[in-house]
């Protein structure tokens, strides 16, 4: 029990370190959020805007924004560790690697959620989409999605740290692996914004994504140590 408490305390400390750097410079949050907002503006020009078309396409817009901004944020968050060569220090810290990993994933989840907090209302406003008709389920699926992106993303962003073409390779690795997450996210959102909302379907995809997150979290914890070696 004490171990478990220590685990959370250490993970929270790593996460807080990342978030505090971010709060001081605000570099990643500002750029990610601005990029997300730009995406929304581009969508508004690129897609038809009648009500039925919007209901059909807005789930895709939301999740594509999260995917794009998530990869950008992940790349930058780990670039910071590389520029100052602090990844080694982090890995040398006298705590299990699992706690370092959890901390990084936690901080990344917060960043992705920051984008979602801005993008979702923007989509609802600019496109007049009924995204907030059922806020509870929507928040649940977006949080689960952010966790999934952050968990899988942190593993591979950390392994790609020293690789020259990491910016291109991160999405190459991530998107095929995250397809179930995006499908679950878009299907659930689509079920919620449909003219006749389908709560059974929405709940099915929420559970699906919950299991996906749990499985990949365990797998990431298990693999992180053997993948990330300096």
């Amino acid at each position: 029990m004490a171990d478990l408490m220590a685990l959370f305390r250490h993970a929270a400390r790593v996460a807080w370190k990342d978030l505090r750097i971010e709060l001081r410079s605000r570099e990643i949050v500002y750029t990610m959020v601005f990029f997300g907002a730009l995406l929304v503006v581009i969508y508004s020009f690129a897609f038809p805007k009648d009500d039925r078309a919007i209901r059909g396409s807005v789930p895709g817009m939301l999740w594509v924004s999260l995917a794009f901004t998530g990869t950008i944020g992940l790349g930058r968050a780990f670039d910071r560790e590389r520029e100052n060569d602090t990844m080694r220090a982090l890995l040398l810290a006298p705590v299990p690697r699992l706690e370092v990993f959890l901390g990084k994933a936690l901080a990344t989840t917060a960043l992705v959620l920051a984008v979602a907090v801005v993008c979702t209302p923007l989509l609802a406003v600019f496109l007049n989409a009924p995204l907030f008709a059922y806020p509870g389920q929507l928040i649940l699926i977006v949080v689960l999605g952010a966790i999934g992106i952050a968990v899988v993303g942190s593993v591979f962003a950390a392994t790609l740290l020293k690789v020259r073409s990491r910016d291109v390779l991160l999405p190459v690795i991530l998107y095929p692996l995250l397809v179930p997450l995006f499908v679950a996210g878009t299907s659930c959102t689509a079920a919620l914004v449909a003219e006749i909302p389908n709560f059974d379907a929405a709940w099915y995809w929420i559970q699906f994504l919950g299991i996906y997150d749990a499985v990949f979290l365990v797998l990431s914890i298990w693999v992180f140590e053997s993948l990330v070696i300096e």
Partner: protein
Amino acid sequence: MKKLAVPLFATLAAIGLAASVYVVFFVAPLEYSFNEAGKFNGSSLFLNQKIMYFHVGHAFWLILAVVVSGAGSLMFLRTRDPKWDDLASSSTDVAVVFGAVVLVTGSIWAKAAWDVWWQWEPRLTLSLLLWLVLVGYVLVRRFAGASGDRIASGMAIFGMISLPFLYKMVGQDSHPAAGGNGVVATLPPGERGPFWLTVASFLCWYIALVISRVQSTRAEREVRELRERGLDLGVLQ
């Protein structure tokens, strides 16, 4: 024995392939059906059906290739023995090629049978997504530098674990002749012999490709290691 493996399997594959082209086109029955008035049915596939032999022949060993590369990656991460990585990456290279063959032949068949090149039908979706993971693996393996082997095997393991999710995600299956009886049980008797002949020749082809690829990957790695040792010792510049 080791030196003979590649020529042996390549020869077997060549003979098998030549024989199966003959058998498929001249021995196996043409697929056609009549309607009640005795006219050819619009759904008759005639020669188009022949592509099935090559499509399924590749699809079978695509699955084997994927299993081999998944297992190889797992063993590599556990043991750090580069021979497992050689096996996994070679098998994935072959899997990408086989997967491309499966997708293209399937697409040609679909144009004849369903009148569309592509349909977002569960098995097609699944094969495409699997193939994307494989291509990602090869790209990482090639462009991620010295740590590419580790990252790629991590990707293989994550890809393996995401398969059940993909499977659950794509839902019900409507692929031809893939019901409870399986592909083979639903084949007309005259097509079974040629079918198994093609499947066997493509297995030999797969084995020949993987072994030769493993040998060249290992040689590449050994040259690299020797060079690094030479640099360390100051013998090489």
